[in-house]
């Protein structure tokens, strides 16, 4: 009900209904190297990956495996040294407007209340005001923020701040939602709740999501496909299709044999480098 309602009213957000052929994201032969003073860091090496429309892809791996760099490459925030990325058929050659980005820290504007922080996205893009306000109200309702419209960021808990950040990333109906460790700074219980909500939102909207995490449970619970990366150089070690279809309730999913098989296999792959949660 949610993602497509505003398509009719949309003006200038930058995309058509997602009906065409081809993958949403196509990553081919991507290498990224950073030069520091005394050495060259091979952050990503030979990454080939396609992400389909409506897919929820998680990227798991230990610190330093380049998973965040890969996400930034998709958004056009980091340039590739070799290979390339196409997003919805057009090459990524700089920061892309058709993505929504959520960082680990909420990165809100301290001087704006929750609602105005979400509307910031619309102001910067010059989207129609009335439409943006309606959409903001819908998003706040969807993420359980109703009643907090006037709350300033410092009055909100970490989880609530991250909800605001998520609403801001969704406001313009991006083709892809990119999330970089979005729940990494939250306590375990809040994180679980946010996982459940994000899964529900994805089930309701069918948007394309790429989530970077170093929590194996999070990667498997949320995603329809999980990519495991390894460090030095950052590369894809293995991919898993997570064959738990339809609605996923939290605890039953954790007890699902498929969930347990995949998480066990990923933990094995990551060995001692993976975090235990």
């Amino acid at each position, binding site marked *: 009900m949610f993602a497509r309602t505003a398509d009719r009213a949309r003006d200038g957000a930058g995309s058509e209904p997602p009906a065409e052929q081809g993958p949403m994201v196509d990553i081919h032969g991507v290498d990224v190297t950073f030069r520091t003073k005394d050495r060259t860091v091979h952050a990503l090496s030979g990454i080939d990956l396609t992400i389909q429309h409506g897919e929820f892809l998680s990227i798991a791996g230990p610190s330093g495996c380049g998973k965040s760099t890969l996400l930034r490459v998709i958004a056009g925030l980091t340039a590739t040294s070799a290979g390339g990325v196409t997003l919805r058929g057009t090459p990524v050659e700089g920061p892309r*407007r058709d*993505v929504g980005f959520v960082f680990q*820290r909420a990165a809100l*504007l301290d001087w704006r209340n929750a609602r105005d922080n979400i509307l910031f996205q619309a102001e*910067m893009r010059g989207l129609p005001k009335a439409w943006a306000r309606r959409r903001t109200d819908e998003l706040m309702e969807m993420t359980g923020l109703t009643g907090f419209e006037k709350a300033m960021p410092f009055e909100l808990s970490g989880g609530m701040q991250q909800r605001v950040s998520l609403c801001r990333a969704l406001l313009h109906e991006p083709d892809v939602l990119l999330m970089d460790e979005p729940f990494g700074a939250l306590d375990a219980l809040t994180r679980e709740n946010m996982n*459940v909500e994000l899964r529900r939102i994805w089930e309701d909207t069918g948007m394309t999501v790429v989530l970077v995490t170093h929590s194996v449970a999070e990667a498997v619970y949320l995603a329809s496909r999980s990519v495991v990366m390894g460090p030095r150089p950052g590369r894809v070690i293995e991919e898993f299709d997570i064959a738990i279809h339809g*609605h996923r309730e939290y605890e039953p999913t954790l007890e699902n044999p498929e969930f347990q098989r995949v998480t066990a296999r990923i933990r094995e792959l990551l060995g001692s480098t993976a975090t235990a949660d």
Partner: protein
Amino acid sequence: MTPQTQPAPAPSPTQATAGTRRGRRPSLGAVALYPATFLALLVVAWFAVTTTGLVQPYIIPSPVDTWKAFTDNPEYLWGHTLVTTGETLAGFVIAAVVGVLVAVLMVYSPTLEKTFYPLILFAQVIPKIAIAPLFVVWLGFGASPKVLVAVLMAFFPVVISGISGLRSVDPELLELTSTMGASRIKTFWKVRFPAALPELLSGLKVAATLAVTGAVVGEFVGANSGLGFVILQANGNIDTAMLFAALIIMSALGVLLFAIIQVAETLLIPWHASRRNRG
């Protein structure tokens, strides 16, 4: 073992917004109580040492004599106060505008920063009292050399606080705005500038007090009006009561400017942590 499919129950809004800044801000009376008490004690001590004859009146005049200096020469003092106030305000406003512009240019252009930062530092470390005579030679005895000294004094804290304020913006926020396709000017006004305000206003407070000093230093060097001139004249006549009166006015001028910016702070950046933690 209840499956969690519903969104987590949100804590009530009233709980999150309870005790907002306004409610906790202390009243003016509470803020003024301690310094006012101290000031009163100081005046009592002042009375004590002067009326007992412990100190000669030409060294420290009594509070009564100082008060008389005010009441006997209201027009004289008022006129000179206006002159110094004008110079101070002009110097402060010019320093604030130019300082912010320079800070913005330096933050956006590393080349400009490398070129001009050492020069600005150099201008800052020159003792102002030492170059003030030069300004008189260049600009004559009017208001302009005083304004220039005030600008020079107030400029540096504005630039420094402006640069560090503009740099304090969250880099992730700037990356985020780059995915929003907004112009640099829009990003500046909506993100960078508001983020810089807390530090910038701290710098402006320092600049305000320095502007008063600058104007008076300018007057010392060559003037026929202003509070600096009043002090020089009173000193020449060994009229310490008048000298004290001028000193008190100057201090009040600095405090007043400082307080105005403080009020501006509460209006412009009520969200800022240093303000909300204070109470």
